[in-house]
């Protein structure tokens, strides 16, 4: 899984007016919660946070939050709030995780190659673009690749047939149809 480091600071101001002033000063409010601890209000440099989040493109990533009080927290992005008009950042939620503890992640599936059946006139039918897996955050892949080159017309791939890395288990129903080549 992708790893990132984002510097942050503990935020001591709250409320609508204070947050507007914070955003005007080039900072973005955020919050870190989870792992049984009390929620911690944070603030980020908007430019830094925006560039890191845009680089991620909502993919799974373990983010190390370097907080100005000297602590480091491992987290995943839980929610990003944006301005629908300007596409600027409003707020970011981070969920604290333990990297040694298995957790559930939704991982995108990409189908590589051109199936044999497609050359014979078959049509691709993508039913699932992501599956839910469980594993230690750092061992969960960014993307699951499935080779479809050998598929003929009528062949199908279900979630259980997708090869997973060691230590990662499938949570989605193994019988769920993911991909198929259907007759035209």
């Amino acid at each position, binding site marked *: 899984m992708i790893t990132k480091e984002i510097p942050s600071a503990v935020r001591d101001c709250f409320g609508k007016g204070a947050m507007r002033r914070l955003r005007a000063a080039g900072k973005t409010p955020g919050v870190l919660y989870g792992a049984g601890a009390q929620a911690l209000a944070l603030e980020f440099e908007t430019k830094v946070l925006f560039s890191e989040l845009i680089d991620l493109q909502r993919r799974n990533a373990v983010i190390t939050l370097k907080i100005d009080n000297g602590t480091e927290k491992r987290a995943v992005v839980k929610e990003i709030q944006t*301005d629908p*008009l300007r*596409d600027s950042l409003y707020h970011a939620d981070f969920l604290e995780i333990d990297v040694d503890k298995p957790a559930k992640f939704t991982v995108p599936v990409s189908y590589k190659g051109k199936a044999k059946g497609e050359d014979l006139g078959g049509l691709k039918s993508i039913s699932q673009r992501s599956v839910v897996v469980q594993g230690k955050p750092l061992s969960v892949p960014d993307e699951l690749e499935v080779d479809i080159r050998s598929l003929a017309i009528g062949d199908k791939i279900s979630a259980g047939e997708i090869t997973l890395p060691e230590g990662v288990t499938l949570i989605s129903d193994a019988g769920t149809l993911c991909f198929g080549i259907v007759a035209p």
Partner: protein
Amino acid sequence: MLSPKKVKHRKVFTGKNRGTAHRGSSIAFGEYALKATTRGNMTAQQIEAARIAINRKIKRGGTVWIRVFPAKPVTKKPAETRMGKGKGSPEFWVCPVKPGKILYELGGVDEELAVRALTLAGNKLPFRTKVISKRSTL
């Protein structure tokens, strides 16, 4: 042109168009999109005109997704009619558009062509628009 197959009420109130779009404000299908930056009503004719403009430019090279649907009827009184005697008859269909609404999405084409096609589509519309890409939005 797009229009509902069946409606519960033939005529509806004019209503107000306030606030910004939250639902339908992010790219869901394609790589590039046309986003409204001001508000207005998009008629079924305009939706079709913009769609044709995109398709002519991309020459059926990519995929176009239309993210708006004209579900609101607009009524009009006939010309030279005295006021009163009830509400006019439905004339056309519109989709009220708020700032931030994604109107069209485009996939399977390069950036230059997508920007050109979507700009042409934006020129057909009665409000301001901008072209955005999935890579440049969160």
